């Protein structure tokens, strides 16, 4: 298994000139964190201009820029790499080697989860809006976000025949990932908020709100891990079957 990961990893670094991945992981969190640096100024502005207190909405902004944003960017990258493989017939080539069928997509998923976890934790840390206690939970939220990125990638990789269709699917997914999961923030005391749990993107955002507000955190984390893992495994199997 380690040999597999090593050889896939080496190939990755060759294929997309390691610096692209490196730049991605470094640049995306920095850009999102920098966007979040405007939050204190916006908060002061809202207070001075409309006497509106934005502070309760900080978790909402952090989830949009610190969790869902990186998930979308790195998920797109995962999807595009899978479509690269489709173009280059990598999966076909692997079928004549003794590697198990799901090994390659599983490796791609694992690598994505690792990168997203680092990116999310870095964004939350750099944002300056997240307390130490919430940052500790941020690692687990990062893993959960990584699963979301994998789902975005696999959806692109399976539904799109080529990269141009991949971009179209990305556009369709955009709102489902970055906007719709933010809606339940406005009625957290209603049981209806759980209906949004059908969207894999709801769970990491919801877990972050709980982490930042000091509410009950574990059910959302575990619920998300279970639900998103199930979806990931189902999609991985489907991808492997379709080759």
């Amino acid at each position: 298994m380690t040999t597999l990961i090593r050889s896939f990893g080496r190939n990755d670094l060759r294929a997309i000139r390691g610096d692209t991945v490196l730049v991605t992981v470094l640049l995306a969190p920095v850009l999102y964190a920098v966007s979040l640096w405007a939050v204190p100024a916006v908060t002061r502005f809202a207070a001075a201009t409309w006497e509106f207190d934005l502070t309760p909405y900080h978790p909402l902004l952090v989830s949009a820029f610190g969790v869902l944003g990186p998930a979308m960017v790195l998920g797109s990258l995962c999807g595009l790499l899978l479509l690269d493989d489709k173009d280059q017939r990598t999966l076909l080539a692997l079928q004549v080697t003794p590697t198990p069928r799901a090994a390659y997509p599983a490796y791609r998923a694992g690598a994505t989860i690792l990168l997203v976890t680092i990116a999310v934790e870095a964004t939350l840390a750099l944002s300056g809006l997240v307390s130490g206690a919430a940052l500790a939970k941020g690692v687990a939220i990062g893993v959960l976000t990584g699963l979301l990125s994998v789902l975005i990638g696999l959806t692109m990789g399976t539904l799109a025949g080529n990269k141009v269709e991949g971009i179209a699917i990305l556009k369709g997914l955009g709102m489902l990932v970055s906007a719709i999961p933010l809606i339940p923030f406005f009625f957290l005391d209603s049981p209806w908020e759980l209906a949004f749990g059908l969207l894999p993107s709801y769970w990491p955002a919801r877990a972050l709100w709980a982490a930042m507000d000091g509410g009950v955190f574990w059910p959302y984390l575990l619920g998300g891990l279970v639900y998103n893992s199930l979806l990931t495994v189902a999609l991985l199997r489907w991808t492997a079957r379709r080759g």
Partner: protein
Amino acid sequence: MSATIAALRLDLRLQRRYGFLYAAAFAAVLWIVVLNLLPAKVLGAALPYALFGDLAIVGFFFIAGAVFFEKGERTLFALLSTPLRFREYLLAKLGTLTMIAVTVSLAVVIPLRGLDFHPLTFLAGIVLTSLLMILLGFVTAAPYPSVSEWLMPALVPLVIVNVPLLSYSGVWPEPLLYLIPTHGSLLLLGAAFDQVALSWPQLLYALGYQLLWIVGLFFLARKVFERFVISREGSS
């Protein structure tokens, strides 16, 4: 002219085949759902952000996807060995993608607001923003061999064009942000929904400055195309 019309028709067929039309329609439906949840008094303030942040800039990603794909499939070279010239090819892309942006924007705004907006500033805002972002997508994408490699660097221009959100909203009233052409986009879209009262100089700035950028980027697009696409038949 007829070549441009033919190119437009061909390109629209391509956009449908790529799935762009369906993707844009799907995004529009979701925007209606989200914006519909807002209280009526906030809707006018929110619309310019929604239009600017998503609906008017679909072209940025779509043009990149199309260019990489057409490069990879060699259709670009096939097209350019016909009497179709690069200018017509790019005009067709600008035309179809801007049509999509305008249609989607109207499809979101009319169900929510009816005709309660200023059509001229609205159209000017959407069309200019769309043209600017398509050209920006084209110019930044051309040097890269594949869409996977462009995705990350593309975040940089995306962040820069979003900086005027700070000046438009009043959070950071920095006159220097007028240098970023999308400040004009926001002024026009804001005026369309009575969020800002435009003075004549502001209106001239919003229209003229963006047009200046569009014309400049159009010529840059040709340069970039000759240098990166024609001279090396890149792989997708």
